[in-house]
């Protein structure tokens, strides 16, 4: 303590100590700062420099157009067009909800939309893909984009972009095959199925687009630019890679056949397949009703999408050729015949007296339309579609061996199992067995256990059997080609954009089955007779057709009504193609399905068919 406050203080021990403490604090603090600087700049300098570069260098992706899809003659089925889209970047949108709303409101005026609609659309997309750009509107006029670019400050986070959009010049033709492509989802990225895709890439989501995505997807280009803290580009472009378009995919599909098939089914609910019996190349595959795939190339609402799935509209998105689940009716008799011949239940010449009905157990099984066919052998039974003949085979098969003779042959010929077609989501259907039905009975799903009656019904393709046109086509093709169970496929080859072949998409048959040649011939004779000889169920439809064919009608009884079926092998006697068609509530096979197949064959065989297409009246 100083006696005189005004006097010069001598350096008292107390003051000296306190000054020393302050000096010590300063020394410690300097030491600490130096140490930290050494750590940051000398020891971790490289890490931080990399981080600083990371900050300033932004890679801007340049979308690569997907490859085109063409038909077997090179006609374009799926192509690209350039569109201007207005997108928003979630990172650059204002943080506060009120400010975001203002941006949406301004944007709504420019784009002629409702602000609430923009908000909902953006939020929905950001929920699905949180960090990707959300599309507000596609196909925007250039004037609008120019306006947005001029008034950037008023539209933070809003970015116009040039995008490639899939375009389908053939409209509804082939709509069920192509599927669609979309920005990759987080799930897909995580799934590992797209090893070289990154966030924001467009990948195939369904159909051919998904199946052949690795060929169709191009390689995106990029430009590297320097940006400032606000994301504005500063200085010149640092580096650029040009985008590379995806490969061109040539399909086995024949546009004419496809058009004919879809035209033949117009106004109906049904599906068709036209396939090469030897190679499994699918030259036509379609479903009715159809839809315009261009729908998926623009943003759409949930309600619009729902309509495409609705029962009232006939579920246009359903591909009935591979996803329908129908009993096959008498077209299935080919399978029963093969099983019975190979299983030794009957010989090709054995004659059965068809009295119009037969009593099995305590049920009377009758012919369709109560026809009485008299004595029939296999050829005649197939020709006139005698049910009694096959009822007896069904009854016999049930009681001989393990009772699964027909089931096994159905399985061998490809019924009720995956066909392996290069389209996703095919339905496998069902070949009914005692085991299956009894299991359902246990679980209370059906009222009846398996009885011989079920096998009798199954033998003519009724009852529990569920299949689709593609599976039936494969079964017929197997008999026609000598036992090859083909693997159906649409993809033919991968080409560059000039059409030069880069890769053939070889699709070997899935397996072989052994059917004695004389049995095959007997069955084919029966099918020929059915389409050509008097009394044949489809003779009225095909007798005027310029090319001879073999074919079988079918009428499946479903709760909705009679389902019309027809499967044809053409030309006869050396069939090259199999054509199968089915029409829900189409009446008898000869009424609707057979005429539809005739229309398809006309295009397929490239014949002048000026004969009037008569609907048959045969009640099968």
């Amino acid at each position, binding site marked *: *303590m*100083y006696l*005189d*406050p*005004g*006097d*010069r*203080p001598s*350096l008292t021990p*107390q*003051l*000296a100590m*306190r*000054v020393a*403490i*302050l*000096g010590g*604090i*300063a020394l410690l*603090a*300097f030491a*600490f*700062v*130096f140490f*930290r*600087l*050494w750590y*940051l*700049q*000398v020891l*971790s*300098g*490289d*890490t*931080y*420099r990399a*981080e*600083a*570069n990371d*900050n*300033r260098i932004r890679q801007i992706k340049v979308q690569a157009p997907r490859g085109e899809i063409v038909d077997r003659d090179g006609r374009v089925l799926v192509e690209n067009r350039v569109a201007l889209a207005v997108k928003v970047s979630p990172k650059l949108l204002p*943080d506060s909800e009120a400010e975001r709303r203002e941006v949406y409101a301004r944007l709504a005026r420019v784009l002629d939309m409702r602000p609430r609609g923009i908000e909902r659309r953006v939020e929905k997309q950001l929920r699905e893909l949180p960090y990707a750009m959300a599309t507000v509107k596609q196909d925007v006029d250039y004037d609008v984009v120019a306006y947005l670019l001029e008034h950037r400050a008023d539209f933070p986070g809003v970015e116009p972009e040039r995008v490639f959009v899939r375009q389908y010049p053939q409209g509804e033709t082939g709509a069920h095959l192509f599927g669609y492509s979309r920005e990759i989802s987080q799930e897909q990225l995580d799934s590992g199925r797209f090893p070289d895709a990154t966030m924001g890439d467009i990948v195939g989501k369904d159909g051919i687009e998904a199946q052949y995505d690795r060929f169709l997807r191009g390689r995106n280009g990029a430009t590297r630019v*320097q*940006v*400032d*803290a*606000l994301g504005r580009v*500063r200085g010149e472009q640092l580096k650029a890679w040009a985008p590379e378009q995806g490969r061109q995919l040539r399909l086995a599909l024949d546009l004419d056949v496809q058009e004919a098939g879809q035209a033949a089914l117009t106004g109906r609910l049904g599906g068709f397949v036209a396939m090469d019996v030897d190679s499994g190349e699918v030259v036509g595959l379609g479903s009715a009703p159809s839809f315009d795939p261009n729908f998926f190339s623009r943003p759409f609402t949930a309600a619009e999408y729902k309509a495409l799935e609705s029962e009232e509209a006939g579920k246009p998105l359903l591909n009935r050729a591979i996803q329908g689940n129908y009993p096959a009716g008498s077209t299935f008799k080919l399978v029963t015949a093969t099983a019975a011949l190979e299983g030794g239940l009957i010989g090709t010449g054995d004659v059965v007296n068809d009295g119009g009905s037969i009593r099995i157990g305590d049920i009377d099984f009758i012919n369709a339309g109560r026809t009485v066919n008299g004595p029939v052998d296999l050829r005649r039974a197939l020709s006139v579609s005698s049910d009694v003949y096959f009822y007896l085979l069904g009854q016999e098969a049930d009681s001989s061996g393990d009772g699964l003779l027909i089931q096994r042959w159905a399985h061998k010929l490809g019924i009720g199992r995956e066909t392996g077609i290069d389209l996703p989501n095919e339905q496998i259907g069902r070949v009914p067995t005692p085991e299956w039905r009894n299991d359902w009975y246990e679980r209370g799903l059906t009222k009846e256990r398996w009885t011989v009656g079920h096998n009798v019904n199954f033998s003519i393709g009724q009852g529990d059997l569920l299949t689709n046109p593609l599976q039936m086509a494969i079964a017929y093709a197997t008999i026609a080609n000598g036992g090859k169970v083909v693997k159906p496929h649409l993809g033919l080859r991968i080409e560059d954009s000039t059409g030069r072949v880069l890769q053939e998409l070889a699709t070997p048959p899935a397996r072989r089955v052994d059917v004695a040649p004389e049995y095959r011939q007997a069955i084919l004779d029966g099918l020929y007779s059915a389409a050509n000889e008097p009394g044949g169920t489809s003779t009225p439809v095909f007798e005027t057709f310029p090319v001879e064919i073999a074919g079988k009608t079918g009428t499946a009884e479903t709760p909705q009504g009679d389902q019309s079926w027809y499967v044809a092998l053409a030309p006869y006697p050396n069939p090259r193609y199999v054509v199968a068609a089915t029409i829900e509530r189409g009446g008898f096979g000869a009424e609707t399905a057979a005429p539809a197949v005739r229309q398809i064959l006309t295009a397929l065989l490239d014949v002048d068919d000026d004969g009037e297409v008569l609907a048959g009246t045969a009640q099968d």
Partner: protein
Amino acid sequence: MQATPLGATVREFRDRSGPSFVRIDVLLLAAVLGLTACSFYTIGEATRDDFAGSPHHFLYRQIVFAAIGLCLMLVISRLDYTRLRDWKAQIYAVLIGGIVLVFAFSAVTNGSGRAIELGFFELQFSELGKILLILALSAVIVDRVRQIGDRRTTAIVMLLALIPALLVISQDLGSGMVYISIALVILFVAGTPWTHFAALGALAATAVAIVLIGAPALGVEVLQPYQQDRLTAFLSPSEDPGKASYQQLQSQVAIGAGGKTGRGDQATQTKLDFLPEHHTDFIFSVVGEEFGFMGAALVLSLFALLIWRTLRILTMAKDLFGTLIVAGVLAMLMHQIFINVGMTIGIMPITGITLPLMSYGGSSVIATFIALGLLQSVHAHARETAFAKGRDLAI
């Protein structure tokens, strides 16, 4: 001995030892001029692209501020600081009045409550207020030096400091904290017992607990949300550019990226605006990025020289008033240097405080030069007295 009138002292001295500027601390002046030069160079580099068409806008203004400050420093260094003791009441009144005036003024003009627009530059009164507070508190303690062990002395001084400090904190947390540091260090150097500091520490802890935990729980936000955000940001760096912690992260990246020798023109953090406020609060980050460890070490060394000379003058002062003034200036410099540098390297919270002599800004630069002028004045008078005594003895 009462304060000698300025004129007499100068006259007396001139007869004996030539020009009086020799008696200023030359090393201190060297540190100040060195830092000012560093400031010019760094601001010039950092702001070249900030004002389109006027690359030297900030540099030229800073040169003008420094020139004014330098003149003020030289004038003040030749004045007799001891006279200021008699004006303590007026000084304190100007301090409070000035702060209130800024409030009133900004209430009218819708300003931030921190500065008054003066045409050429914005006067941030809280910067000048630091000097006024140092003078007022030092004078008060000198008057009560016999009661330094009395609790009331500590209470009075703390109260006198807290009134302006809290007024400033309400607008500018960083500057307000400097006021409290100044009061504490002045008390410390004056010889306030340790027990008082312990009691103050306990009170402070309680107050912080109430402000940060108690009051928000009752629905009263004492600190602005952004202030709280800044205070806690250094604990959890974030990628969100809107958050204070983002600035801290970017500052750390900038300094780290500087490496040993700096990036010069390639200093992208600064040039591309990733570093906010790069010519004011975060100027040390610019030094770190552009000139690397070498540059940062040079600036820190100059600051170390500055602190060392200040401590030396503290021990030399011819009277307690001088000692305490130097203690106040020391507190102000140390607080600002370590908090500012600390926040740029991620070890201190962001409180919005300038780096003395380095940061761009008229109020800060001029206030610092005034403080340095006071240091030089204390130094000159100490040398003068020692010289006089030595001479007397020699005769």
